[in-house]
């Protein structure tokens, strides 16, 4: 028997996920433009693998397969994984990433809506720990043509001797370790572009544009990206102002690595994130803080993934402590 309400907004998980995919397109376009089409190979591979794994797991769990595959959530996860890891990783790394994110991080916890950890970030962390070398071979802008990229992707784990340049974050880290100041590191390295890493600033801009699409279609609220960006800018800005020789500028932090991807697409994963308005602010700010700490003082060039996982753990507590007051129970109500 059907009860009220009898009408529903034409909304669906499929529509939400589809919007996310569309919103990723500007960033993806910039990516291909700056770094070549190799990423598309991994993206296609990951998408097919994601659908296959999702279907397989749903069949094993005796759940409706078509519904789960049709909601596109697996494809979104696959895209986010691929966009988080270097574009020229060998195909089996991509496959592994999809298996970890969808098979383990999502379905081991009960499937859509049940996973406490961000599946894409689980895969990223697992792989960067297991394959640190492969996971840090980022190509420079315009450095490899498509054939070379294809060769790397399909040819297995050949060591990319000297093929890839250090990323901006990497270069900064190595430079700083050797005692140079930020200024000298920047001026002496082709990895640095206008704002962040060369070419990456365009990708970041593309992601930001996609973020606006998500905000405009109300798939996400402003809280998460705003808190993430604000926190990253404030904390990096503070140290930059104190000692510009030792710390990179906020603009550099925001335009480098996966900051924009994270701000609009990663920390906004609804399932594993905080849900209350205040909780979202705390959650995203926490990720930004941890990411900056790891970037500045940690063992990995970028720390967003670890920040996400660490804050995922805190979500139940954050949500519990930030329940908004319900109607009529607000303070100051006469």
């Amino acid at each position: 028997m059907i009860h009220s309400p009898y009408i529903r907004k034409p909304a669906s998980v499929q529509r939400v996920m589809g919007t996310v995919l569309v919103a990723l397109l500007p960033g993806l376009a910039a990516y291909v433009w700056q770094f070549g089409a190799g990423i598309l190979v991994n993206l296609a591979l990951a998408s097919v693998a994601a659908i296959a794994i999702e279907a397989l797991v749903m069949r094993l769990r005796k759940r409706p397969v078509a519904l789960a595959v049709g909601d596109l959530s697996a494809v979104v996860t696959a895209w986010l994984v691929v966009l988080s890891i270097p574009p020229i990783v060998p195909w089996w790394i991509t496959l592994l990433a999809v298996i970890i994110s969808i098979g383990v991080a999502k379905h081991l916890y009960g499937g859509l809506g049940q996973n406490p950890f961000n599946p894409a970030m689980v895969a990223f962390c697992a792989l960067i720990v297991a394959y640190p070398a492969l996971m840090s071979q980022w190509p420079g802008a315009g450095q490899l043509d498509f054939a070379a990229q294809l060769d790397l992707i399909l040819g297995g784990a050949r060591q990319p001797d000297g093929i890839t340049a250090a990323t901006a974050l990497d270069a900064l880290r190595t430079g700083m370790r050797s005692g140079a100041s930020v200024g000298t590191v920047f001026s002496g390295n082709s990895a640095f572009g206008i704002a962040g890493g060369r070419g990456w600033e365009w990708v970041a801009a593309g992601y930001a544009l996609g973020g606006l699409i998500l905000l405009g279609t109300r798939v996400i609220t402003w809280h998460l990206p705003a808190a993430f960006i604000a926190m990253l800018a404030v904390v990096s800005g503070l140290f930059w102002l104190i000692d510009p020789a030792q710390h990179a500028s906020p603009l550099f932090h925001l335009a480098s690595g996966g900051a924009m991807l994270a701000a609009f697409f990663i920390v906004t994963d609804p399932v594993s994130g905080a849900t209350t308005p205040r909780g979202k602010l705390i959650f995203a700010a926490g990720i930004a803080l941890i990411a900056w700490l790891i970037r500045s003082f940690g063992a990995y060039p970028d720390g967003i993934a670890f920040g996400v996982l660490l804050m995922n753990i805190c979500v139940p507590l954050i949500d519990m402590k930030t329940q908004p007051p319900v109607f009529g129970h607000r303070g100051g109500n006469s």
Partner: protein
Amino acid sequence: MRSLFRFHGGVKPATNKAASTSEPIVKAPLPPRLVVPLHQSIGGTPHPLVRAGQRVLKGELIGAADGNVSSAVHAPTSGLVTAVEPALMAHPSGLTMLSVIIEPDGEDRWAELDRLNYKSTPPDELRDFVRDAGIVGLGGAVFPTHLKMNPGREGRTRTLVLNGAECEPFITCDDMLMRERAAGIVKGTAILRHLLQADEVLIGIEDNKPEAVAAMQTAVRAEGESMEVVAIPTRYPAGGAKQLIRVLTGIEVPHGRRSTDFGVQCFNVGTAYAVFEALTCGHPLISRIVTVAGNVDRPRNYEVLIGTPMSDVVRLSGQRTDTTRYLMGGPMMGMRMPGFDVPVVKATNCILVASDALFPPPPPEQACIRCGECARACPADLQPFELYWFSRAKNFGKAQEYNLFDCIECGCCAYVCPSHIPLVDYYRFSKSEIWARERDKSASDQARERFEFRNFRQEREKEEKAAKLAAKAAETRAKLATEPAVDGAAATPAADAAEDPKKALIAAALARAQAQRAAAQPKNTDNLSAETQAEIEQIEARRRTTGNAPASGPAPAGTGASAPDTQP
């Protein structure tokens, strides 16, 4: 311009109101049979005053209010009472309810009517009059109106809010009433204002009803009243009493509290009109405006006699053949009717004719992705998905902690949910489970109390027996003591010897009984009953905060589970 406030959330479904407002209200013809349920308001069920075979006149009292929290029921037309028997209620439960079945004689002859001049009548009498005229909240909550005609504690009401918002899609009965009978509404409002001693009157109407706003403004001016007609933004559920009060005054009335505690009282426009009709024309509430919309050829508003079978009304609008069911109310909060011939009752603001094409069954339910859409839509500022998780896990304590009972079941959350989860169903389930448990608990509390009282009584009886025995023994002893003087000393030692062990026994029993009484009495009467009392009070308090006393019977049609003063 008055500055308005906003309430959180809300949704904007297609209003679908144009079709039923193109034609004026028309009287529905007399049906061949009227089924008038006796219980049509919150509170006690009126006693039937008529028997089968009796003739009644239009407006004649056929059910007297049962106590003060109840409302009278009248014959909608003149005719013959063919039966007083249970009949199917206008409620999804499919339960039956004692109803008076009347076969109209076609003459529609009025009984003798009472009128009242409200200005010269003491308030108590006025309230009784309104109760006996059977007037209840016509917005759908059917709360007896006379109970709300009280200035709050301070003897004054700051704001009287008249609810003409009518936010549910499809429903237009209030809209049409305001367009056509604005003067009556304003006059009725003046009466309510007089009783409430209200400083200001705000008439809230959603701004998608400009004709109604204009009509009401004209009527207010024509009547020379100082009332303000306020057009409010169209957003469901702006017509919920609490949401409307919030929009107009900025006050948020918390769940379980009465708006009068905050100096505000709210009536539906239809209710104000009914008050006017009752006092100035003497007409008790025997008909109401009903919107017929949905799967019909000519949606329209009808003035329908209470007790008219719904199918008789829908027929006038041309019911389409693929009709599957009727809903009472709108598509957001309406209730599915158990049959096509259930009677129109005082709560029936709309008969929404449904088909699978018009209201298709929702797509399959998917997992909650915690997207928070529901929380953004919730006018009660709840976290619907948390309530959903707790309800699903049958973690009712947690659900209550997350303010389950503040949920007004408006349906906004389910309306927006991309996973198509029937969220409100989960809340209804949880609420009914919690009520059932509390009922069980209070029943078992009563049983325990009864049991403990019996223990106490048995104890007391034992003591009394012992005391009686002791008294008797003492008596015998006294008798024996006097006897030697008559019979000689020889008998005494023997008697004493026989008496002594007995005496010792009795003394011991007495002492034991006394000790027991000392120990037992406070235990059985004071302590425990205080404990029980505390428990009872706790339950009561909880119930007060949840605002839901366990229903003594099936809820009357149209009450849903919202607070009594909610008139969405």
